């Protein structure tokens, strides 16, 4: 048994071990990162064509999960005049308008949202555990399935496939760090703070590196294509809604059955509404997102328009479901 605490590794001079351990962590993480990139070879697949009957909510889902779908649906109802946002109230309130039009023209996801809203809701309720996002999960799951099938979103199978490598790296770091800690204590050395710090830091870095991106390489390329295709739409679709003009709640001319501004919100995020008559929507939901995140929600705060530039959105390690999204109202970074 003495060999366990009396061997070159156990008796290695502390600073030397830290250097050695640092190298082990570094190379283990490099290997982990390389293996992870090998799991996603979707960039070699043919890029799906942009369909003419494009669904803005599906694009919103691809970009940021159910949170983004919720934002887009709420925006659509706001634009169509079914709801309004009272930003004067503290906190802001989303409420139905007095003169409700015929809701039969709304699509099912919009009808569900309007039904959930009741008379009024605070924006933070949208992202809570019993909120709209939860209600919309039925649509989210459908989008998830379809997009996984098209290999634009990372599937649960792909995530679990990385587990053996991931856990090997975790165990290596934890095992080596833990073993040296015990050996040091056994030798009466209690100055192990740097060792503990290095072990914890190594584990945290490995955990971050091991996270599979929510959107695959193919999904990112597809999003970039969408953003290239509809780049000019984000300017032209705002034209009727710039604040200097009279507010116009009626949807502008639609084409191919898709409202241009809604499609722009789906593709680029609600940040494009800044400076329009709908900027109050952005303000209300930005606060709600911050409150929701502060309250421990699993929602990420990835920016709506970040995805093209290499989204940092990633799902939790096997948990949290669609934990990405939220959007910060188009800022370019996190909230």
């Amino acid at each position, binding site marked *: 048994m003495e060999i366990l605490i009396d061997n070159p590794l156990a008796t290695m001079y502390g600073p030397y071990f830290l250097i050695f351990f640092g190298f082990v962590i570094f190379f283990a993480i490099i290997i982990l990162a390389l293996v992870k990139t090998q799991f996603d070879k979707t960039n070699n697949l043919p*890029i799906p064509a942009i369909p*003419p009957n494009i669904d803005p909510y599906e694009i919103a889902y691809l970009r940021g999960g159910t949170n983004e779908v919720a934002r887009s649906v709420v925006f659509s109802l706001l634009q169509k005049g079914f709801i309004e946002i009272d930003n004067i109230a503290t906190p802001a309130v989303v409420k139905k308008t007095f003169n409700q039009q015929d809701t039969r023209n709304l699509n099912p996801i919009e009808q569900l949202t309007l039904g959930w809203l009741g008379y009024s809701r605070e924006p933070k309720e949208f992202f809570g555990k019993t909120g709209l996002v939860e209600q919309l999960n039925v649509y989210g799951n459908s989008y998830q399935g379809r997009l996984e099938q098209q290999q634009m979103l990372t599937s649960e199978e792909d995530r679990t496939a990385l587990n053996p490598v991931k856990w090997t790296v975790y165990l290596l770091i934890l095992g080596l760090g833990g073993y040296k800690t015990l050996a040091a204590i056994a030798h009466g050395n209690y100055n192990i703070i740097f060792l503990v710090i290095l072990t914890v830091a190594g584990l945290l870095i490995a955990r971050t590196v091991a996270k599979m991106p929510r959107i695959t390489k193919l999904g990112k390329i597809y999003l970039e294509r969408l953003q290239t295709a509809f780049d000019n739409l984000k300017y032209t679709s705002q034209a009727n809604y710039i604040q200097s003009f009279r507010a116009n709640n009626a949807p502008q001319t639609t*084409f191919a059955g898709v409202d241009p501004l809604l499609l722009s919100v789906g593709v680029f995020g609600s940040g494009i509404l800044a400076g329009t008559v709908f900027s109050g929507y952005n303000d209300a939901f930005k606060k709600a997102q911050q409150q929701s995140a502060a309250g421990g929600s699993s929602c990420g705060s990835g920016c709506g328009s970040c995805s093209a530039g290499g989204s940092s959105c990633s799902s939790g390690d096997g948990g949290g479901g669609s934990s990405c999204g939220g959007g910060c109202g188009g800022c370019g970074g996190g909230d």
Partner: protein
Amino acid sequence: MNLEKLAKLGIGIGFRERFRADIFLNQDLIDFLEITTDHYLDANPQKKDELKLLKAHFPLISHSLELSLGSAEGIDEEYLEKVAELVEFVNPQWFSDHICFTKSGGVKIGHLAPVPYTKEAIKVFVRNISKVKQRVKTPLILENITYLVNFPSSEMSEAAFIKTILDETDCGLLLDVTNLYINSRNFGFDWRKFLDEIPLERVVQLHFVGSHKHGKRLIDAHANKTEAEIWNVFAEVAKRCDIKGAILERDENFPPFTEILEEIKTAHCLMKNANIGEFSAV
């Protein structure tokens, strides 16, 4: 060149950046796109991405502006090389340029300038086109342009000039029906007779758009809705030729895209030789 073997592409529009979103949302109504070659030569990464995107969704035809086939000094080989590379990338059914010159003494004149209709000019075209065809194997088709003067030195009619060039170079014709109508109005000739004189079996593609009235003259501004008189020219050509494709060219005064789609629908009807009678002037 066996023009009959070229695929029928249908009705499309000249791609302009501001149409991009509308084009993608109405893909099922637009059969193909014509890109302006010059917009993608020495292109930045965004334009290259745009071209890849378009290529992935539509059949493309490239239409260049600066080959200057009528320049006595010959073809700019550097420009030809770039055009050739782009055509190879786009891989269109055919590519096109104009029966004109745009460079003189190495200077770009920024305009599609007509040449006198002489045997000497034909020799220049034949020589230049031969050089282009040596480098680019894709079929080349030539477009008729508008002009503001009839050169006194011309030895033949425009139709005879075009016919001779097409026969001697074995090229197809991109018949711009708007240009034909404008020239016929400005110089008082019958466009039907023009059609009688040109080799209609060589007409591969059409261009169409409305004309623009400037004083007593019509000009080709690409800024107006196609008028009834031009639709009549289109319809007549569609009846008499086996057209492979037609492109709406709109560059200015952009209307709502629904108006563009209406024009495409009208062109579709005419291409199918629908019995819609003669258009009446609005």
